């Protein structure tokens, strides 16, 4: 009875479906669709490495060619997750080496990667082509050397903001003379100097090289020589500019840049002095992405650069740009889609930069395509937020960090509730939201009600009571990741909305008022959640009602993990056992 689509036909249809969300839906239709889908999925994404076991993933997707994994919770970026928490890549590499030897691409974010892992990758995957490590740690340049030496078809090697044990610049010389396949190389986070002649030769024999991001140790001379050998680059991360500017050096640099007619993205620029900026002018009209967030250039030099960047879509800059500079951006960079403004003095010791909420307002007015914002600012106003929301209903990502915790609207002294209400209500496609400043529970009522598409929400120093969490967990239909720190809510809302947590990837709460007792109840109630308590002291040595320092809750089909360190307790599903590490130490 009934029509059944031959699997060959279904396979063919599925070959047009790339989005994993769609593929996930396909796999739920019926068993045969599940089977066909899983056998044809090439790109696998696992947003939480502890949500599922490596073996299960390898078994389900035997034709995997690309694996993307994320490990530590996002707040690990801000030192809120102690070292040693977890996120080890090894079990995954080991499992894939055994079951999916045709794997070609590995992308890891916030994971612990050892040299052993890298050596295993090099040894196990014959067709390995792409390695991207973002915010990873645990490996040394020896591991990188292994990859360089062994992976004959390596196209992409990117180390993005990793913490690497730097044993010297020799790793670069391990690329064999026969290797000509490089398309992208990013070693900007390494400290040691590499031999420039090795790099020159590598670049010369890599005709497909499109993206090159150097580390600060590469000098201006080195940069010039590399640009001459790779004028086809579309993405460039310069080395350091902190060297004496001789007149001939400047003109060589200018000339080298002007020959890079396809350059679209520029980053690095450490220590760039205003006198060097004119060397970049020739590439500005073609730039779509500019990362000045490590360049301590100030106004008005920045304007001269930015007014030439009429095609700019992405701008990362420090608050040294000031409101004035952002006015220039609003005037000249009409294609702008993404703006990030970072604080130049993160430790607040010199908070006297003339960057205010007006800077963001003016960009919101002038840049019609603006959809992604990250903005650090000392204080803000509701009026500014209302204007931003009204002008830019197309915002998809809005992350505002009012640096002063609990800072109210500095003109009216009110909480920023109204402002964030406007953002949540007005920006109907908002997918990511970070709030800050003085916020009452009301703000979260609005967010819960209106932020229907928000998937990731970050909150710090906000709210008054349990109502805050109640509003969020009973609303926010699309919420997948919620991270909260230093907010005064307790157990009630969390337990009331336990079921919601299974619809989310994870919930992080630190320095809130959630008790150990509540964690136990939650864990018992929700068998498919791992409730991890991250605490210096065993939670059982304190009263059950006492608040726990940090909690990380995530849905999983893999059960409690086996690799927790001393300070992490996964609450056991069997209440008699209480908490345990479950690992045999």
């Amino acid at each position, binding site marked *: 009875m009934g029509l059944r689509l031959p699997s060959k036909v279904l396979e063919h249809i599925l070959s047009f479906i790339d989005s994993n969300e769609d593929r996930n839906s396909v796999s739920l239709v019926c068993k045969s669709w599940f089977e066909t889908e899983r056998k044809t999925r090439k790109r696998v994404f696992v947003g939480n490495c502890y949500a599922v076991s490596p073996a299960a993933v390898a078994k389900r997707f035997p034709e995997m060619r690309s694996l993307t994994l994320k490990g530590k919770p996002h*707040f690990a*970026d*801000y*030192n*809120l997750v*102690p070292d040693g928490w977890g996120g080890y890549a090894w079990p995954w590499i080991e499992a894939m080496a055994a079951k999916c030897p045709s794997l070609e691409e590995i992308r890891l974010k916030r994971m612990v990667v050892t040299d052993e892992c890298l050596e295993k990758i090099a040894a196990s995957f014959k067709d390995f082509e792409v390695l991207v490590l973002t*915010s990873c740690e645990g490996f040394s340049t020896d591991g990188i050397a292994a990859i360089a030496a062994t992976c004959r078809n390596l196209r992409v090697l990117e180390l993005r*903001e990793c*913490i690497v044990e730097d044993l010297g610049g020799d790793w670069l010389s391990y690329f064999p003379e026969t290797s000509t396949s490089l398309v992208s190389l990013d070693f900007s*986070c390494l400290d040691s100097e590499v031999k420039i002649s090795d790099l020159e030769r590598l670049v010369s024999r890599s005709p497909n090289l499109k993206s090159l991001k150097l580390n600060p140790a590469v000098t201006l001379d080195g940069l010039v020589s590399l640009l001459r050998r790779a004028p086809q680059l579309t993405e460039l991360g310069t080395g350091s500019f*902190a060297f004496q500017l001789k007149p001939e050096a400047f003109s060589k640099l200018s000339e080298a840049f002007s020959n890079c007619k396809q350059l679209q993205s520029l980053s690095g620029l*450490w*220590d760039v002095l205003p006198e060097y900026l004119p060397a970049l002018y020739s590439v500005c009209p073609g730039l779509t992405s500019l990362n000045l*967030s*490590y360049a*301590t250039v*100030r106004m008005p030099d920045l304007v001269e650069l930015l007014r030439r960047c009429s095609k700019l879509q992405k701008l990362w800059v420090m608050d040294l740009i000031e409101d004035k500079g952002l006015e220039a951006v609003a005037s000249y960079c009409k294609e702008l889609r993404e703006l990030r403004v*970072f*604080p*130049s003095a*993160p*430790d*607040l*010791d010199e908070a006297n930069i*003339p960057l205010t909420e007006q800077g963001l307002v003016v960009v919101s007015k002038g840049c019609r395509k603006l959809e992604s914002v990250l903005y*650090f600012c000392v204080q803000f106003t509701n009026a500014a937020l209302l204007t931003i929301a009204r002008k830019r209903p197309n915002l998809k990502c809005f992350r505002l*960090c009012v*640096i*002063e*915790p*609990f*800072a*109210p609207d500095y003109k009216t002294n009110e909480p920023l509730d109204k402002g964030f209400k406007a953002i949540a209500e007005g920006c109907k496609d908002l997918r990511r939201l970070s709030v800050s400043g*003085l916020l*009452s529970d009301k703000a979260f009522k609005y967010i819960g009600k209106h932020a229907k598409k928000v998937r990731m929400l*970050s909150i*710090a*120093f906000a709210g*008054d*009571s349990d109502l805050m969490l109640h509003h969020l967990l009973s609303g926010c239909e699309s919420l997948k990741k919620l991270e909260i*720190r*230093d907010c*005064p809510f*307790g157990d009630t809302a969390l337990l009331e909305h336990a079921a919601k947590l299974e619809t989310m990837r994870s919930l992080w709460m630190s*320095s809130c*008022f959630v008790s150990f007792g509540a964690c136990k109840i939650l864990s018992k109630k929700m068998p498919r959640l791992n409730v991890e308590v991250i*605490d*210096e*002291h065993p939670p059982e040595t*304190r*009263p059950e*009602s*006492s*608040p726990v*320092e940090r909690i990380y809750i995530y849905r999983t089909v893999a059960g409690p993990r086996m690799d927790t360190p001393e300070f992490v307790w996964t609450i056991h599903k069997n209440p008699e056992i209480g908490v345990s590490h479950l690992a045999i130490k």
Partner: protein
Amino acid sequence: MDEFVNLKETELRLGLPGTDNVCEEKESIISCCNNNNKRALSSDNEKENESSSRKTETSPPRKAQIVGWPPVRSYRKNNIQTKKNESEHEGQGIYVKVSMDGAPYLRKIDLSCYKGYSELLKALEVMFKFSVGEYFERDGYKGSDFVPTYEDKDGDWMLIGDVPWEMFICTCKRLRIMKGSEAKCLSCGV
């Protein structure tokens, strides 16, 4: 919520129970807020001894070091800091920042380029287009609205010229050219 107001008993911190590890440099940064239910900010960092900070009435409160705030990645923080430090301790120079009241940006100078106070002051005069008046040991600088000062290792603001030059370059952290009434107080030997 009342039971959470006094959390001292169940407070998590390093150190033996019964001891009070108060870190001298940390003060609360809680600004005025209408709500009493705000929990005292506690910062905990495995590497330092700290206690939960309390609201203080002293002014101006120095910003407390809250872990992970503002939310800037360590990679980024380190890169800005190390670039700062590197340029300050190049081995070849003692770079310090110089600010002048009323001027929009700061400058940086290399103290090791100067052999003594008169060279330094001349350079500052040129850089900021002002003049410094005459230095008197007892009375400080006279004859100008501007007074050159520096912040020393202890965080105190001192008049430039009071200590021997060698001592000055070792203890000077930054310079500030004060203007107006504030300047008057410092230079009249109070």
